[in-house]
């Protein structure tokens, strides 16, 4: 479903991705691990369409569609979702308002009917309840004054509502307490199905205990340096990344 071929990208003249190749199949949960600064967030931003990066070579295809040619909002409508490592605050815009704007914008782009307000409210309430998000929170401006963990939970709420085809979770586990980690993992697991693909970026095995990945990839210096099954994560947990940093020239 998601195919990344030989992706090279730089920002402000600095090369970050160096020929990254990765494929995630429909229904697959792929985990990416790798040292700080190896380019994991950069990869997720490029898939989602953040401006500022120059892709010098390679391609990113979602079900054959060339994502790199699309506006970020069109990518979202096509089914790409990014749970941000650092979710942004939108002062003055109630969370509910934001959610409805996002859902309607996507529906419109896909030529689907927008959901009616009662339906929408029901959906949001239900999803919030599953993620143990207080209803009062939905009235507050999005992410403003939310704790780190609350922000992350709000990302998962958005994912649940937008029901993407392909979701990237960038360190969604960082900042979550033990209970919240389980709640968020349950939220992700509930969305797993045969069609949906996930790219889960994390530093810790702990998350992968809850969200069992189908594949694990190690990223270093802007490329995938090793791929394997779930046991690869356990191995990394023990040995760290030392082996991979030596490899790069």
């Amino acid at each position, binding site marked *: 479903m998601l195919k990344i071929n030989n992706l090279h990208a730089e920002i402000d003249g600095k090369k970050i991705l160096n020929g990254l190749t990765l494929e995630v199949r429909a229904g697959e949960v792929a985990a990416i691990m790798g040292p700080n600064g190896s380019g994991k967030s950069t990869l997720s931003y490029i898939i*989602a*369409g*953040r*401006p*500022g990066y120059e892709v010098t070579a390679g391609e990113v295809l979602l079900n054959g569609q060339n994502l790199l040619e699309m*506006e*970020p*909002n069109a*990518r*979202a*409508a096509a089914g790409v*979702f*990014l749970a*941000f490592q650092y*979710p*942004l*605050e*939108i*002062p*003055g*815009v*109630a969370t*509910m*308002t*934001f959610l*409805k*704007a*996002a*859902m*309607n*914008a*996507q529906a*419109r*782009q896909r030529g689907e009917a927008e959901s009616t*307000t009662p339906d929408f409210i029901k959906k949001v309430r239900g999803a919030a309840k599953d993620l143990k998000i207080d209803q009062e929170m939905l009235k507050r*401006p999005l992410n403003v004054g939310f704790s780190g963990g609350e922000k992350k939970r709000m990302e998962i709420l*958005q994912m649940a509502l*937008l029901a993407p085809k392909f979701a990237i979770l960038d360190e969604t586990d960082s900042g979550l307490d033990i209970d919240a980690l389980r709640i968020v993992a349950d939220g992700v697991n509930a969305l797993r199905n045969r069609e949906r693909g996930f790219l889960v970026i994390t530093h810790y095995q702990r998350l992968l205990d809850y969200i069992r990945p189908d594949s694990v990839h190690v990223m270093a210096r802007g490329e995938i340096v090793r791929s394997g099954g779930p046991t690869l994560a356990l191995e990394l947990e023990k040995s760290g990344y030392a082996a991979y940093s030596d490899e790069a020239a």
Partner: protein
Amino acid sequence: MAADLETIEKVRSIDVGEYKYGFVSDIESELAPKGLNEGIVRYISAKKNEPEWMTQWRLEAYRRWLTMVEPNWARVEHDAIDYQDLHYYSAPKKSPGPKSLDEVDPELLRTYAKLGIPLREQEVLAGVERPRVAVDAVFDSVSVATTFKAELAKVGVIFCPISEAVHTHPELVKKYLGSVVPVTDNFFATLNSAVFSDGSFVYIPPGVRCPMELSTYFRINEQKTGQFERTLIIADKGSYVSYLEGCTAPKRDENQLHAAVVELIAHDDAEIKYSTVQNWYQGDANGKGGICRFVTTRGDCRGAQSRISWTQVETGSAITWKYPSCILRGDGSRGEFYSIAISNGRQQVDSGTKMVHLGKNTTSRIISKGISAGHSQNTYRGLVSAHRKASGARNFTNCDSLLIGENCGAHTVPYMEAGNPSAQFEHEATTSKISDDQLFYCQARGLDAEEATALIVNGFVRDVLQQLPMEFAVEAQKLIAISLEGSVG
């Protein structure tokens, strides 16, 4: 909540670059010859069949005006205005004065329909959830239709064109006209006093809570006509009124002058809420055309515990020079100013407020949200002063500016004069930019760049929007989105 979404829908449905209200009604109108002299002043007065005292009042203003010079302290630039090259009176020919809706030129009604004004009583009444709104529509210089008059009369509220009030309530007009903005006040106000065409007159008797929102839509139609509205609102003891002014104008190539005067008087325990949603033509991308507004709006909290609140959403016009102010004369009176001023393209906005604390224990609150985009300049200019006898005066000012793009400017010019040592003035100001990351975050959720900008801006101005009556807040949100078109990308 729904309003934000409507904003976004609106942005999508609008043809970028086309001013939505840029049509010209094909109505024959009666024009005064160009130029200004005593003869023209008399002509205007005669057209309105005014009593001699009114004619003299105008002439006195005119003579005064001849001795004055145009102020130049505002941060706006424009070609010199040739006051002899303007028409000072224009009236739709088929509608010499207020009459029932059936008699109103259908073309005019169509014009209003395009503007979305709920002129027809039925339409207004039909909207079950919608609070009823009485509309006094001003087409160029003459009020052509007044709705709900009868119902208002039942509770003793007078709501009519000021030209009519001169005849029907001369004692009130004589007593209050010019009592807040004196004939000598400033160049533009004095000009208005000489040639004012029409506007609304409102009187709320003691103890009456006006049963509906009162509203006037101003519209400039005739080419090269100066607009000189005059609004006078009096809230007698213990009364309450909420008044809304909405403005749009058709597209014109030449700058049109607008010099309105608004006077509000609140007696003991009375409250006046005055809201403006202004979307006049701002000129094209090169700054050609557009409305130039030099407006004097002032409220007098004359009585103890009286309260005046200004809420403005200013999105249009090429040049805006406007400082809705409060004279806090009565002890314990309160003045409020809530403002959203948006500038885009080549617009120049110099707006703010004056809170003049004269009485004891008077309080004021200023919340100003300026948004600059394109090549525009947006200045907040405010004065808070406490008279030597105004013990216990308190003010809170919050001035936030938001910049969109690299070529616009935001300026904050606050003046404070505390003549009494017990005065407490608080001032907060911020300047920020919409961050690329905020935009990207919204886009990554499916909003396009313009929708994302409109959403973020609506969030930025939320505190002020909340001050507007519900259905006008919706309209304001739409205008915000429309006025920011083309500011991103």
